[in-house]
Structure formats: structure tokens, C-alpha cells
């Protein structure tokens, strides 16, 4: 379990990504074949030392022989990571008055770590990885597009670009998602990392489109505990990080209603994601990133049929 604030403090993104992935993998049986996109292929004779979890028990029952299931590496599936770099992701901001530095892991930083870890994981499996995000205003189009490619050098370059990103402005996650889907020429994996506060409807529509086109879409919703709990006391003034709007609210009085509203929103997002065939993952910035990754991988592995169905469609 890697503390988010400690990992976030690692400047070398590649190193951090590898640490996350390796830490996640320690909970799993080490198998290079158990990645994002592996599926069951055939049996082979049991060799002492094989993981008993991969024993085909049904076959044993029928034939009284030990066979290990073998997973086949599918044809490589590229992955594109879509990262929301809008202003709302920059929360809690570093250097907030009253906060100690150790606690300040912004949603954006967390998203960057997860993106890096996923990129590293996919690349280590020999698959191509790409990135779509919004860059600082001034660049033409304001979007950063990195087409998926295999190889160490490409990964390094991608991580380098990733580590230089800063959150700013407004995000249209929907258009980024479409861009990302376009980058995947054949069937691939699309992972969208955002808080999905704005543009929620449109973003989901684009993701559903991607699913229809045969991609494996994952929705990683990042939230900070501070924005779920609203731990402030008394009358406060809040500023919207993206629009600059201000509102005066009595936090104590509003807390209950606010928490209910946020919980309802997250619930709705999850339900709608599931209804459209989008894989949903809620990422709190307080959760160790390796735990999150491990949990997700386990979940996907537990439903190999579903994963296969998604991949194969």
C-alpha cells in the first residue's frame, strides 16, 4: 500500500508508475499474461509450481487429470488514456492555507499517477499506449494528442509530457473522449480519467459511442475526500475553480444536503456507466493508487467472460 501523498511526491513519474504497478501486482499472481486484455486460451498439463487457482477443476472432475488453464495473450489491444486537465481537477490545491503539504494530493496529480501507472502497465505488456488531454491555452486546438505506440522510448516520452501538464481552464471531456476513440484505429481500450463534473451527459454519450464501436471503455472518476465531506464550518465563501463564480454558503448548515447531493451524483454516474456498458471506477485521492489498480485488475479478472465479451465485440 503506497500512501498517495508519498507517491505524489515522487518527481520521476516513470519510477512512480513502475512502483505502483509492481505494488499492485504483488497482490496478484505474477503472470505477465494477466493484464488488461488477456483471455483464456487452452489447457496444458499441470506442472508442479503452477498456481492452483488456474487449475481447471471442472476438467479434473470429468477426467481426473490435472490441467492448468492457459491464458492467451490476445492480439495486442492498444490503450488510450484520456486525462481531464481542467481547473476543477486542481483540488485540493497545493499550498492551501491551513493544509499541510503532506495532505495535498490534488485530483489532477492523482489522475496523472493513475494515467502513468496504466500507461506503464499497458506498455509492459507489449501493447501500445496513447494519451489525450488538454494542454495550456495558446497551443493550437488546446489539445495534446499522443497516438498509441509500443515501445519503451514512446512510453518515456509520453510520461515526460504527462509530468509537465498543469490543470487549467475548462475541459470538454466529451470532445477529448471522441478524440481518444478516433486514435484507436482498431479495437482498443479507452480509459477516461476525470471528475466528470461538467459535460457529464455528453461525455457519457461519447463513451457509449466508443463502446458501440467495440472499444473497452473504463471510466475512472476522481474525487477528493474534502469535496465529498465539506468539512468546513460556518459561513464560507467558495470560488469555482473553473468559472471563478463565487457563492457564500453556511457550510455547517449545508453539509448534510451537500453530501447527499454528491453521493447521489456519484451513484447516478456509476449506474449510468454500467447501463451503457462502461466500466466504472471511483478513485478517491486518499486511496493508495496501487490498491486501486490491484482492485481493478482483480475485478476484471474475476469476470473474464465479460471482459472477453467486451473485447471481442
Amino acid at each position: 500500500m503506497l500512501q498517495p501523498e508519498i507517491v505524489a511526491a515522487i518527481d520521476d513519474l516513470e519510477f512512480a508508475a513502475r512502483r505502483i504497478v509492481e505494488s499492485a501486482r504483488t497482490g496478484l499472481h505474477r503472470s505477465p499474461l494477466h493484464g488488461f486484455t488477456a483471455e483464456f486460451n487452452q489447457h496444458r498439463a499441470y506442472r508442479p509450481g503452477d498456481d492452483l487457482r488456474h487449475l481447471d477443476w471442472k476438467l479434473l472432475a470429468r477426467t481426473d487429470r490435472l490441467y492448468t488453464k492457459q491464458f492467451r495473450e490476445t492480439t495486442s489491444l492498444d490503450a488510450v488514456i484520456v486525462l481531464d486537465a481542467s481547473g476543477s481537477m486542481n483540488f485540493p490545491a497545493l499550498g492551501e492555507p491551513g493544509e499541510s503539504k503532506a495532505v495535498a494530493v490534488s485530483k489532477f496529480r492523482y489522475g496523472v499517477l493513475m494515467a502513468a501507472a496504466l500507461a506503464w502497465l499497458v506498455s509492459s505488456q507489449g501493447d501500445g499506449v496513447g494519451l489525450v488531454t488538454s494542454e495550456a491555452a495558446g497551443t493550437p486546438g488546446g489539445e495534446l494528442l499522443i497516438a498509441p505506440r509500443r515501445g519503451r522510448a514512446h512510453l518515456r516520452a509520453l510520461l515526460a509530457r504527462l509530468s509537465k501538464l498543469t490543470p487549467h481552464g475548462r475541459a470538454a471531456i466529451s470532445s477529448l473522449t471522441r478524440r481518444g476513440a478516433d486514435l484507436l484505429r482498431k479495437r482498443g481500450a479507452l480509459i477516461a480519467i476525470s471528475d466528470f463534473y461538467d459535460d457529464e451527459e455528453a461525455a457519457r454519450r461519447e463513451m457509449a459511442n466508443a463502446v458501440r464501436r467495440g472499444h473497452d471503455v473504463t471510466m475512472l472518476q476522481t474525487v477528493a475526500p474534502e469535496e465529498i465531506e465539506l468539512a468546513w464550518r460556518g459561513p464560507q465563501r467558495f470560488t469555482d475553480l473553473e468559472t471563478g463564480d463565487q457563492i457564500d454558503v453556511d457550510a455547517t448548515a449545508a453539509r448534510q444536503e451537500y453530501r447527499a447531493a454528491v453521493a447521489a451524483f456519484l451513484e447516478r454516474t456509476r449506474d449510468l456507466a454500467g447501463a451503457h456498458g462502461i466500466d466504472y471506477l471511483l478513485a478517491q485521492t486518499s486511496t493508495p493508487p496501487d490498491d486501486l489498480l490491484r482492485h481493478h485488475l482483480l475485478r476484471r479478472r474475476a469476470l473474464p467472460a465479460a471482459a472477453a465479451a467486451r473485447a471481442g465485440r
Partner: protein
Amino acid sequence: MIWANPWAWLGLTAIAVPILVHLLARQTATAIPFPTLRFLRTASIVDVRRRRLSDLVLLAVRVLIVALAVAALAQPFWRVSRPSRVNRIVIVDASASVAIDDARRAAAAEAEGAGAFLAVERRDLGGAVREAAAWLSSRDGAGALTIVSDFQRGALQSVDLAGLPAEAGVRLQRVPMRDQATAALGGVAQWSVDGARSIATWSAPASQPALSIDGLDAATASAVIDAAAATADASVGPMRAARFVMPDSPNRQALLAASSPADEPWMFELFIAAGPGADTLRVEGDRITVFLKTRDLSEVAETVRRALPHLATGAPVAELERLTLTDAELRALEREPAPGAPETEPASWAGRWFWLAVLLLLAAETVLRRTRPGAAAEVHAHAA
């Protein structure tokens, strides 16, 4: 209110501190950056103006705290103003003519409401006034002199009062003269008081009337006369000469022939008063002669005794009219004391009220600070 430590007021410069804090606080941003406001919009809105107002109230409270603390350090005292008490000295005229008991009573009454008080009994009023002037000068505050006396002319003059401090008051209290019943006044035959006048009647040096008894030897005669005079109801005064003649006196016939019959009313009164012991009464020049018909010595003494009061002439030998100062003259000498500066009595230390107010305001400041909108944001770290 008086301030015992006025230098403390320099501390008012400390009022600049809460004002600076107020101005600086306005500049720092207190808004909390938040990812999205969509979930907050459903909640209640706090008026921004209330924030500014509560900030001003807090500033006012803080300024007041500083001001009151400074005031308390300036040592405030309640000023109690009273009309100044007059220091009074009373000179009681102890000369013989004054009724001393009345004088002492009058002197005691003067102590009422006085600051410092002193009463002296003196015979020499001029010297006493000089003493009083010295005493009054030695005392702070207004002073006054009272003289209790019968104010006989010559005892007190205006020049005596000139030595008093100019602002000292003078009061002259008249008391009656001693009652005439006391006869221990040597040489005074009669003493009467008529208003402001006293009349004394002197007799000549009291001498026994020229009394003689013819027909008795000298020793017996003086014994009888003494016995008669001792019990006689005689007022002291000039007496006529009188001779009493015993019945068996050898000079009886000769005296009878030499004297002439009584011819004035008082002689007849005397003869009647003399009683059965007297045989006849005749006059010889200015001498009354009473011829006795009794040989008994006690009866003789009795006859003499009865005769004595009628031998007084009743004419005053000398009359001296003594005058005291009139009321108008007394009033002219009197004057009111100049009022002294009102006293300030630092009664109670008023600072405790200021400190109490400071404590209450400190409590109010804490409450206001905590409850105003936008108070220091406290974010609890999410429990991992």
C-alpha cells in the same frame, strides 16, 4: 473623574493595531477554491454584507477594548466634591463678668460642621485673637474665629481683629453677664443688668454704722451690736449714726434735754419697727437717739436689730455705668469666611469597572470572531 496616571493615555496609540489588523485582513483572500459549485447552489446563501458589518463590529469592539484598558491604566478616580469645611477657633472670654457656663455652651455649639476645631478660654481678648490668627494660618482651608463674650467696651477693638488672615471669618457671640445674685464681688453693693447696661453700686468701704449704746460698758455694747448686726436683714450701704440709751444710763436726762423730737417719716417707721423695747426717739443733729425702756440685753439686741434696716440711707454713693458693645457694633466687626477650595476625595478606585468592561468585551470579541462569516476555515483531514 480624575486620572492619577495621565501618561498612560499615550497607550491609545495601540488602537492602531486592531485597525491595521482589520485593514490587512480585508486584503487577504478568504474564499475557498472549489471544483464545482453545483452541489452548493442548493444550500442557503449567506449575505456578503453581513460579513462586512460583522467585521466592523469586531473592529469597534477591539478598539474599545484597547481604549478601556488604557483608561484603566490611567488610574481613574471618582471625584467627590464637598463644600470645604471651615476650621474654627473659639475664644471664650473667661473674665469675671462673663457667665462662664453659658459661654462654654455657646462655644461647644460652634463646633457643629467645623473642620478643625479649637476652643480656648482667655481673659485677654486681644492676645487671644493673635493666638487665633496664628492657629488659622497654620491650617489648610477656610478658617473662622468666634469670640464668645459679654463684649464690654474696651475688651475688644477692631484693631485686634486686623491680625487675622483676610479670608478668615469672624463671628461674635454675645453671652449674658454673670447673675447678680452671686455676691462674691468685692466692694460692689449692687449689680443690676439693664439690657446692655450694667449698673454697679458701690458702697463706701463697708463700715459698721456709728452705733453706740450708752449706759453699757464698751465690751458689752459691742457684743450686743455685733449680735444685732449679725442677724439683721441689712443691705450694705450708707448708714445713719444711731445711739441707743439704756434706761438707767446716767446720761439719760442730759441727752433728753439736748435732743429734739423726731420729725421725719422714716424716724417714725424706725420707732415703730424698733418695737416695745424703745421708749422714745429723738434726733440730735444727724444722730438718731433711741431711748430704751428695757434692761434685758437680748431685748436690747433685738431692738437694735429691728432698727438697723431703717438706718440705711438707700442712697448710692457711686454709680458706674459700664457699657458693652452694641449689636450693631458687633455686626460691623463680623465677616463671613472666604470659601475654601472644594475638597476632592479620591473615594474609590474606578479602574475596576474599566477592567470588568475589558473582560466582558474580550469575551464578546472571542464570540464575534468565531461566529462571523468566513472565519478561519478548518478542514479536517479525511480519516484515512
